[in-house]
């Protein structure tokens, strides 16, 4: 019965019912909201500013998005590195692996095809005529 320390449901804010656990969980959610707002605002600012080196903005936005997803996972879904979370983290790691394979693999193959099968400009014009 007392195996609670070995498993924890994802998004379960607290294992306890007392109010002091409640207060600390509230604090966790509020920190998460604060960080997420900062990261979102930075994303929107970076996409619209002319202060940054334009070709690097795309990568920067991806980094900001991954950071914000991490914030959501830790502060809202309570995925931690603790032993009670091992199952959740392993499932998440497998999910991330598949997502990376699908997105990265598709982009890699399609960019490669695009580069190798590009028609000459004259042929492309002919091809695009409707």
């Amino acid at each position, binding site marked *: 019965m007392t195996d609670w320390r070995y498993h924890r*449901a994802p998004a379960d804010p607290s294992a306890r019912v007392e109010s002091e656990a409640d207060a600390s969980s509230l604090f966790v959610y509020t920190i998460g909201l604060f960080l997420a707002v900062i990261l979102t605002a930075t994303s929107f600012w970076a996409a619209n500013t002319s202060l940054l080196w334009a070709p690097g903005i795309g990568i920067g936005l991806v980094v900001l998005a991954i950071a914000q997803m991490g914030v959501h996972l830790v502060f809202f879904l309570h995925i931690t590195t603790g032993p009670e979370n091992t199952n959740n983290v392993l499932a998440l790691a497998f999910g991330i692996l598949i997502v990376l394979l699908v997105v990265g693999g598709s982009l890699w193959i399609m960019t490669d095809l695009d580069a190798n099968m590009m028609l000459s400009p004259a042929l492309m014009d002919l091809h695009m005529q409707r």
Partner: protein
Amino acid sequence: MSVAALAYDVDQGTPVPASEAGPAPKRVVVAYGFWIFLLSDIVMFSALFAVFAVLRRATAGGPTGAELFNQVSVALETGCLLLSSYTCGLMSLAVNSRRSGGTYLAALVTFALGAAFLGLEIREFAGMVARGATPERSAFLSAFFTLVGCHGLHVTIGLLWLVVMMAQVAVRGFRPIVQRRLLCFSLFWHTLDIIWVGIFTVVYLIGVSP
């Protein structure tokens, strides 16, 4: 049912090896199963993201993202969904301490913010269709409507689910089974926000760059 209730209250017990601990509480098993489902949902979304990323320049002479997207509206949608994720967290705190007033209030705010998000998104879609930017116009627009529409559909289902859960809380009270369903709902809602982070970055911010 009593197992779940007991495991919920037991926290001070001395840790025992996992091999001697017996089956995990039902609450943990249910949430883990739902977590697996959500990860498979994320994998499905990753395919839609990949399609969009591949096709985002295939506008076939039609309108591009930079001409269609309104960043103010997207920022508002993002704010609504982020705040509703936060109030959903507050709702799970109220549920865990069995405060029905707090649960209803947080659920109401979550529902209102989610509905506001959906309203903004539908307005955006209607405006695009009115300008002739329909899904059949170009591969880019097909991919856009599939990805963002699929997320909007998930939000709609989430709102319906929230209404059903509030009815269950009102009629059946905070029984363990209702609490497990509410836990699954909050998992679902937080995950939708994570997917939206990917959408506003890939579609609305990176997608408008030349």
